[in-house]
């Protein structure tokens, strides 16, 4: 059973690494969102693995997973709102062109 836990947590680590690379390397806002989604998915996998293999009698862990799903949905809704506003005002969602945010 410990091997199953290791596999699940390693998958979480893999998703985290890939998501981090994606969020940092992409110039398009929608692609950056995809990277952040993968990072949150990594957290989700870890929480479910901890629940399953360490504390299956604790429903609060599933509650925690639900909260991560909420964060994923909220992050996407807000980011798409920003993307629409940006596209309307500048005609692009390329972050290389958003240098005015630097202040």
């Amino acid at each position: 059973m410990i091997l199953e836990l290791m596999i699940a947590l390693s998958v979480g680590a893999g998703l985290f690494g890939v998501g981090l690379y994606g969020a940092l390397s992409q110039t398009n806002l929608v692609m950056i969102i995809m990277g952040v989604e993968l990072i949150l998915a990594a957290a989700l996998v870890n929480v479910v693995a901890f629940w399953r293999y360490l504390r299956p009698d604790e429903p609060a862990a599933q509650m925690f997973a639900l909260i991560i799903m909420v964060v994923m949905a909220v992050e996407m809704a807000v980011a798409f709102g920003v993307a629409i506003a940006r596209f309307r005002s500048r005609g692009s969602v390329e972050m290389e062109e958003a240098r005015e945010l630097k202040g």
Partner: protein
Amino acid sequence: MTAQMVFLAFFGVAAVWFGIVVFRTRSMVRSALALLFSQTAIGVMFLVMQAEFLGVLQIMMMATEMSVMAIFMVMFMMDPGGMGEMNMTHQKRLSLWVGGIGLLAALAVVLLPDWGLVATSVPSAQAQAEDLGRELLSRSMLIFQSAGLTILTAMVAATMVAIVPNAEQRK
């Protein structure tokens, strides 16, 4: 080697592989579909780990979310099909290093601690749903209500940011 281990490893590798494909393909629509497959594989992993409710929720939620994302891709990308060979990456070397270090650090956290005793059985799907329902309506009620309010606020905020102000509002 148990069946659970085999399926967990298979769908885990699929989830990570499709995660990599998201950033390897030049077609943005393919990227959205790869992310959908990755999230679906994660949902199946939850089913393998006997978290039926979360597994089904993950698959349903992500199918919808990624479909919306694919529509946004086509709407907002200059080259959604990836036909123009546009380069949409920057600081690639730095990102690879940071991603690699993040991966190694996370793997170290997985491998180094002593995880102690591991549970061999879980409550039935029905018992899990009942426990989660009780949890939501008792100890975690405030957190759950806050999550609902946060989603509502995000929806209103996203709509307000996205709508075009009329001439009167622009003054």
